[in-house]
């Protein structure tokens, strides 16, 4: 393997060995503390524009298999690990992580003191830009500093035109703000007849299909970067049909109902935070990946109420509308990777659609 460097906007450089594609990329550097599910994480479009450091040091041990993609074309900018296990002859897979990243033109570095980088990110307390480069020279740092990351992430990952995922049950429209396959998987399991629409679909586009309900999907990026028309769409649709919003969808749902969303000092990606269900005081764990959060003070209690709270950073993790069958969660109830404990939210969504039918 050849030398490759992770360089950070603060001027530091970490030497490791390259794997995956020999591409040079720049992105925001974030870390994920999940101990399982690297394939799902790498293919999750939430990481568009981002380079992910895995805190779990041993990555690649079960290869890449056909059942665990969370997108067809991953948009992650790079993968940083301590120890690549480049296994392909696994009981369930034929493809190694290295081969997969090469196919997808994504660079990786192994042999990095990932813990020290994570500790640095924690101490700095804000996201930093970083690049994966073959030589850590002045030029590389200049390039890094000059790079402006796109804010058109949703437009870049969203489907350009509608497509169906037919089923025999309830009809659901999924708005693709970056769509984790887990959502389609859960809807498929419940026989839903799904139509996926692009992120810029209007309320009319949605309602014209006469769906039983709508899902706002997980995203990448900053909800403020989207056009206000998205909020208008949500405002209209939520009055007509049951709505379930997840991740970026949740942030947009909150904004459509006049709550404020702000950037977190440090992004959180993992599955081990205790989350409290407000009504029952029940503690659940879920897959989380967020750089933004709904400001709790700004939630208009006449419109929305908070359903879930992350007990670690006190962020709003779930909202429900007081007047309409609309609710949202910041975390990913489809798991993949992560605990299944909140999977029942999809059943709740189905029930709210069924109630409407009666």
């Amino acid at each position, binding site marked *: 393997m050849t030398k490759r460097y992770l360089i950070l906007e603060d001027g530091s450089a*970490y030497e490791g060995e390259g794997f995956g594609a020999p591409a040079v990329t720049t992105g925001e550097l974030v*870390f994920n*503390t*999940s*101990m*399982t*599910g690297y*394939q*799902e994480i790498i293919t999750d479009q939430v990481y568009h524009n981002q380079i992910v450091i895995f*805190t*779990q*040091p*041993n990555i690649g*041990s*079960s290869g890449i*298999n056909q*059942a*665990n993609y969370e997108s067809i074309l991953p948009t992650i900018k790079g993968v940083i690990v*301590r*120890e690549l*296990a480049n*296994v392909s*002859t*696994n*009981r*369930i897979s034929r493809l190694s992580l290295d081969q997969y990243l090469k196919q997808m033109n994504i660079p990786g570095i192994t042999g990095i*003191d*990932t*813990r*020290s980088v*994570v*500790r640095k990110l*924690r101490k700095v307390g804000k996201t930093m830009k970083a690049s994966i480069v073959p030589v850590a020279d002045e030029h590389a740092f200049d390039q890094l500093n000059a790079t402006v990351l796109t804010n058109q992430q949703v437009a870049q990952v969203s489907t350009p035109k509608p497509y169906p995922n037919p089923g025999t049950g309830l009809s659901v429209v999924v708005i693709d703000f970056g769509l984790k396959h887990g959502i389609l998987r859960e809807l498929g399991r419940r026989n839903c007849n799904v139509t996926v629409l692009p992120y810029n679909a209007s309320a009319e586009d949605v309602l014209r299909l006469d769906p039983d309900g709508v899902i706002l999907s997980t995203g990448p990026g900053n909800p403020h970067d989207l056009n206000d028309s998205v909020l208008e769409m949500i405002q209209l649709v939520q009055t007509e049909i049951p709505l379930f919003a997840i991740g970026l969808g949740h942030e947009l749902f909150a904004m459509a109902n006049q709550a404020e969303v702000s950037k977190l000092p440090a992004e*959180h990606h*993992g*599955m*081990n*935070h*205790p989350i*409290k269900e407000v009504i029952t*005081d*029940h*503690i659940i*764990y879920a897959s989380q990946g967020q750089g933004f959060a709904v400001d709790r003070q700004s939630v208009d209690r006449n419109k929305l109420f908070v359903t879930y709270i992350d*007990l*670690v950073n006190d962020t709003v993790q779930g909202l429900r509308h007081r007047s309409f069958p609309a609710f949202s969660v910041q975390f990913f109830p489809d*798991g*993949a*990777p*992560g*605990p*299944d*404990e909140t999977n029942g939210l999809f059943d709740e969504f189905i029930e709210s659609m069924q109630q409407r039918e009666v």
Partner: protein
Amino acid sequence: MNSKNSKILILGGGADEINHETEIDSAIFQITTNLKSAGVETILMDNNPFSFSLGNSNAVDHSCILPLTIKNLIYVIKKYHPTAILPNLGGINSLRLIEELMETGILREMNISLLGVPEATIRQLNNPVLLNQTLKQMQAPTITAQSVNSFEAAVELTRSTGFPVIVKPVAPQGSLTRRTCHDTNELADAINIALGQSRVGQAMVQQSIAGYKEIEVVVLRDRLGTMLQVAGVEDFDPIGIHAGDSIAFTPTQTLLDREYQRIRDVALSVTRKLRIVGINHVQFALNPSNGNFYVIKNSPYFDRITSFAAKATGYPLALVCANLFMGKVLSEIKLPDNFTYQSALIEPSMDHIAARVPIWPFDVLPDSNQRLGTQMRSTGSTMGIGRSTEEALIKALRAAHFHTDAFNIAENEQLSDDQIVQRLIHPRANRIILLLEALKRGYSTNELAELTKIDPYYFYKLKKLHRLQSDVADNPGDLVILKKAKYYGYSDWMISQLWNQEEIDVTNLRSENNIFPVYKEIDPSAGEFEQHTGIFYSTFESETESQPSNAKKAIVVGAGGFRLGNAGAADYYTAATLQELKRQGYETILINNNPSAVSMNCILADKIYSEPIETSDLVFLAKIENPDVIYVPRVRQRLIQELDQYHLPLKFLPQSGKLSPHLSNGPEFSFTALFDGENVWPLGITSYLIQSQSGFGEPTAMVFPANMEESDQSEIEMQGTEHISGQNQAGIYQTLFVKTNRIHVEQTRVVPLTEIAFLSKALNTDLVKIAINLADNTLDEQTVSQLTGLHPDQTAAFAATFPFKALHLFGETSQSTNVLGAEMAFGNGLTDTLKRLNVKGAFQFHDGSFM
């Protein structure tokens, strides 16, 4: 705490056994300490003389040194009136005893509650049929086992289970044949035989899970039902080899997220169903070919895996459990101040890998059957922590094999290919070394995976290790290779062996080129928060996190993995040393690698280095910590020799006794006394007993004080005092005597570990503390006069226990090198005491007088 938990009775684990070692005492010590500091009155009943908790007033208010019988239990309950009992700390034996207690009705009568595990659950845990019913009811996946009365019914059953299945007769008359069948032909034969052997004409057909992957999950639950997963552990060896005899890793190495999450879901729902409060350890069998999995065992107590999980993740498991037992819920429990995020609710995430390697007793007992199977044979284990699977594994192996060549492949090199295949199929202890040899001979991953049922992933890793080994051997002095070897966990000594150099040469080459370890802190948040556990491990990366203080400090070198020969006593001594040094104001630093050790906890040690203990591991640590004193077990002779050239402030921890050959035959006695360099203060005379089949050597049974004629006694005291006063250094010494027609002096020596532990309990004092104080010249006269003025009104007896029964060994000699654990009891006079000690009738003694 509510009043119903104000006075808690805890049952100990008894003598250390093959199935449990010091982890029980370790859990009891940590939990009782936490309970006591919360104002709970604690009562502990146990008869393990090596228990650190028993008789320790920092942890336990009332120590009852009694054999663990229902009669004694009722006696203790009536004497102390506990408001609650913790039934599960003493492990499965304790749960069985509590079920017996439940049947007496005394719990209701005296209004005593059970903490942690409700009555109904205890019944289920003690009865596999009941537990299986419960699991079935809740639709947890369990192994299919059904009795059939015909071949047709058996074939029908295999439609759902698939092959292989295990067939055996129900209620057999006479002999019993147990067969594994791989197809219907074999099934027909087996059913035929089994039906013939059965008195009721029925055969049991059971789905075979041999070769499946074993996964173990540790979860916590509070009384309101909130749960979290502490760790998932993956066994390297497949089912068919007892989990305790398998190498294990945490976090799980080869599971897909969806498999992991489904297993987690079931572990949580089983724990919920059994209404367990506190810890639960659930074991699963995972069929690697289709991902189906089954619950195979549920253990709601502290065992080798929970202690491994706690040490590996840094999650303060015992502290949290103590609070759960007191009735707190997870959301109320606050972690110590060194955690910035102090909620107990965060699930541990690891940014390191921990490996657990078993230690087998076959070097001491070469006659035992060394094949591994469904019965556990290892006595203990070591833990290795690193930033890669390879590093963790190598470090755990180094910790386990410090006394021999960690990669001594000479024996394996001589095996023929046939023998290798045989040993791959029928695994023996330390198979991992054989696997490396097989890789060297060119066996492919697929072949090896097929023969051993070990996940191919591990062969990928072993191959890397094998390549590394040849790279090292082929490139003496190469700095890039040196760095790489260190990166993957090699010690300087291992490298020096491959380079045909002295260890010091490698160390020097490394120092000249600034290749030094860094120490990372084990942190259950994987770096997300500033969480300080005080537990560190070395690796060869860029950033070090251990910040040595300028305090007065002591490094104590631990006893390592639990092996035969009084390991319990050695760990007791280590723990007691830490306790005393801490009391004296030292910053206590422990280097150890046994996850089950009592010594390995943050109450006793301010800082723990979870490391193998070879010279190169210790020397750099000593350099950065710069301690005032380093305590090394005397038994580590090679280490002590090697350390000599580094001019470190070494002191020594005593070892097990090694008797010089007896001069004469007859009853043996020892006279034990304190010596401060000038004066001798007698503690008393111990009488040694001979257990059946004991050989010559260190006694394994004893009584204190000896019952003897006054004239003999004064003779012994006089001669003993004279001999001990001739010692060079202050300490606790003993002079050994044999009585024939007169009293002969045999030798004078430092009191061995076992006897220190026993006498501490017999005299209800802490002789380890006194030994340290004597050596430091800090022992006050008052303690001395109190102690030597003691005339115990009761006799105490001690007998070692051995692993022979568990290992199916007959005719082995009961000698100190084979000791696994020990029991003790008090009584009035010799006969009564021995009767009390020998409640189970397992011991046979005589006093040597006819010899």
